[in-house]
């Protein structure tokens, strides 16, 4: 005999929210998925609010509480289960028939019985081609054994935003996403890693993936044995790499381009070495030297150049940028450890590589060869540093350009931030997939809700209450906002069978 897990009955509501009375003894949670059945069809609904209900007038309840608090009393509500109850607000999210599933266009029947969702209710979800794994479907705190996939190349090229407060599991999520992408060949990944946490220098990381030898390329200013030294020849740096990242006056820019147009690849070297120049103000030149000293760690004593760190050089790293571009267009994952670099330098390095791959893919597009290559995703932490309103107001940078135009050239961003509200609305709207983790600040939640692909206007409380590793996935490429549980990265290694083989061929498909 099938035992139905009945949790309530519909008592009122409208299309914006269906109200059910919770059955006594049942504990429903924010974000839980529930179903109500009609013959062979069923509605999937999600809890967005929970409140108290009572048939007892407020003044009696207050009196009752007072009696209980202030006096020794054997009084109670005799029919407590009938008179006092919990009301749960649900949003209908999907209507499933034997042949198809779509957004609901009508309400479930009044007084219908509501049940908890089971794995069987989600069996219609399929694993797409070129899958990108996000985690498992979550119903409240309960994790269902249903893997969530979206079509990876679409998701990647249409940009992804990962938003969460500190400690909610952003890094773990990125590790899980990138680790599983190492199973696939449809995408190259550039990870700008300011905390040196993805490669796994001292603990488990992407280097431990079975395909790591072939797929993971690690650049660091202090490389591990067998990995690459992060060093760039200053001759490979172009003036536009500084756009929107290094603060420059008009006069300084003019000076830079003057040197570049005249000296080409020696423009930095010659600025640093220049004593005086006929057409450039001495003071401008002095400021630029100081700035280059700060950024590139480069200075001169007369005729010789001095490099303060190993990051920039004039005799090594000539192929670094090209190598990274080549790796990416061959579907590899390039991790650039920027943990020892200052913020401005980190962004400069990221920007140099991003500009390189973006230019390459633009070129491929013009030659009609764009789809011969895997798509590319650039993962950037604390994204408002390059995508923030303030930053973009001062001048365009390569990340802003990719956010706006990258989709056409199959280059996407994975922007990670705690403060999505700092990113302009048009860029947020261009981030067609959002992975929203626990976010306490209401203005940040509002920014996410307003720019989401699904109507998640009722999800504000849900988002605020998301625990570590819990997320809400909204995407143009999914019909519904999907509650997620991100597995612990370390747990991926505990699976006896390699992850890809174990995965149940189900997931959230495109249509």
């Amino acid at each position, binding site marked *: 005999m099938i035992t139905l897990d009945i949790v309530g009955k519909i008592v009122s509501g409208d299309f914006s929210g269906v109200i059910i009375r919770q059955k006594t003894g049942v504990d429903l949670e924010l974000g839980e998925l529930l179903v109500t059945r009609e013959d062979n069809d069923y509605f999937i609904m999600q809890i967005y609010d929970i409140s108290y209900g009572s048939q007892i007038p407020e003044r009696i309840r207050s009196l009752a509480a007072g009696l209980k608090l202030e006096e020794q009393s054997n009084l109670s509500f005799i029919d407590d289960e*009938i008179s006092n109850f919990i009301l749960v607000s649900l949003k209908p999210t999907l209507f499933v028939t034997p042949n198809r599933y779509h957004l609901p266009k009508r309400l479930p029947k009044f007084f219908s019985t509501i049940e908890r969702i089971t794995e069987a209710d989600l069996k219609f979800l399929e694993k797409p081609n070129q899958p990108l794994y996000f985690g498992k479907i979550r119903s409240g705190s309960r994790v269902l054994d249903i893997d969530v996939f979206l079509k990876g190349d679409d998701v990647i090229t249409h940009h992804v935003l990962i938003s969460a407060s500190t400690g909610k599991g952003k890094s773990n999520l990125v590790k899980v996403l990138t680790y599983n992408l190492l199973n696939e060949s449809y995408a190259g990944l550039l990870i700008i890693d300011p905390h040196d946490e993805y490669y796994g220098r001292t603990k488990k990381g992407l280097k431990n993936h079975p395909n790591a030898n072939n797929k993971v390329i690690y650049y660091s200013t202090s490389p591990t044995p067998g990995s690459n030294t992060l060093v760039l020849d200053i001759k490979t740096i172009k003036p536009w790499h500084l756009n929107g990242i290094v603060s420059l006056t008009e006069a300084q820019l003019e000076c830079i381009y003057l040197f570049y147009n005249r000296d080409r690849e020696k423009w930095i070297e010659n600025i640093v070495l220049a004593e005086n120049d006929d057409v450039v103000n001495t003071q401008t030149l002095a400021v630029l030297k100081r700035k280059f000293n700060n950024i590139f760690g480069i200075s001169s004593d007369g005729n010789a150049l001095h490099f303060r760190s190993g990051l920039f050089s004039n005799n090594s790293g000539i192929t670094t940028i090209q190598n990274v571009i080549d790796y990416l267009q061959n579907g590899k994952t390039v991790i650039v450890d920027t943990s020892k670099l200052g913020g401005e330098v980190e962004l400069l390095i990221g920007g140099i590589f991003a500009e390189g791959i973006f230019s390459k893919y633009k070129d491929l597009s013009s030659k009609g060869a764009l789809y011969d290559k895997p798509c590319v995703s650039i993962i950037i932490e604390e994204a408002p540093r390059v995508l923030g309103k303030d930053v973009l107001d001062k001048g365009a940078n390569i990340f802003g350009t990719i956010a706006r135009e990258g989709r056409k050239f199959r280059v996407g961003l994975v922007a990670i931030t705690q403060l999505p509200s700092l990113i302009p609305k048009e860029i947020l709207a261009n981030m067609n997939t959002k992975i929203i983790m626990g976010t306490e600040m209401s203005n940040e939640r509002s920014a996410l809700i307003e720019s989401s692909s699904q109507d998640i206007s009722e999800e504000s409380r849900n988002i605020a209450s998301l625990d570590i590793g819990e997320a809400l996935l909204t995407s143009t490429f999914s019909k519904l906002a999907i509650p997620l549980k991100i597995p612990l990265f370390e747990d991926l290694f505990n699976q006896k069978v390699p992850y890809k083989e174990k995965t149940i061929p189900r997931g959230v498909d495109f249509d």
Partner: protein
Amino acid sequence: MNIEIIKDILNQIKSEETYNVDILDDEEPQFSDYRYNSYPLKNDNVKKFIHSNKDSRICYIDGGNIDLISSPSFYLGLVRVYFNMFRNNKVITPNVISQKYEFYVLGKSLGKDRDINFTFKLFPFVNDNRINTNEVDLTFDSKDPSISNQNFRAQLNSVCGIARRFLEWKVSEVIIDEELDKGDILVRDGSLQTAIKGESDFSKRAYAAADKKEVTFCGVAKSSRLYTNKGRSLSYAIRLIGNKSYPNDMWYYHPIVDINYLDHNAEMYFVKFHPSSRYVFRFEIQKNRVKILGEEGIKEVLGLIASNSMDLRFPGYPFGLVDSDYIARVRNDEKETHTALFRSLCDDEKIIKFINENTSVEDAHGVLDSLQGI
């Protein structure tokens, strides 16, 4: 302001003999009917009782009614009778019969010689052969003292109240027959006194069913208009005595009166069902049953009802009666629904005109109320 006048009134109250927190000399319940022989009020008549955990079922029954269309000669009303059952203070569902019985009451006036009679007919929402009201005459003299005062004839809408009383007894009988067993208790809302012509026919059948199955038939009255011979409320006087003897306990007062009246087949008590209750209720048990139960049996019954009188909404009043009142009560929104349904099915101009012209005779009050915003 009238401060001095109010002070005079308060002084007047304080100077009265009845302004006393003890029983007065020779104070006793006052019954004008010679069939009621009262006992003087005595402290010794107050007895303490405790909760009972006996496994008996207790059933509570109440009715409600409302006028749907009312005029002097044509009437439509709605009656609802509802009961619930508890065992060990938990709600249980009946095995056989429905908990709710609803009827339309169609009443009309008839000219008879120099007088006016009222007659009514019941239309059940759901047919149930067990609820047969054709066994009694449903025609009443409009000046019958049981429904009118002596100077004025009753109003036609009184038939709805009559129907409700009859149905409460009838449903009680059916509950006892179909659902209750030896040792169970049925509590109705109100006293066990019958007042209307034909009502005792119903009550006798209910009592007979109770006797047959050894069920205790009793009633709890929320209000009492009984007095002492000193002019005080009997309920007030007994509460003074009881609370003085047992201020922190449950107690009952007995004996009060010997009733030798066939239409009031009951033994009367006043009971405080919860120590912290502000209320003392008139409580009656079918007379024959009192003899069988004895004092301990009575305490057992009271203890069981007291166990059901611990609800925070109304401490000291049986929750079963709170619940049955809540369900049985017919609310105004229901009235609007039924009236609208009735009128919407009047597809004939003649019947619409008949109803409108009849009701317009009485609805002038409503016009004035609407002017006051009532």
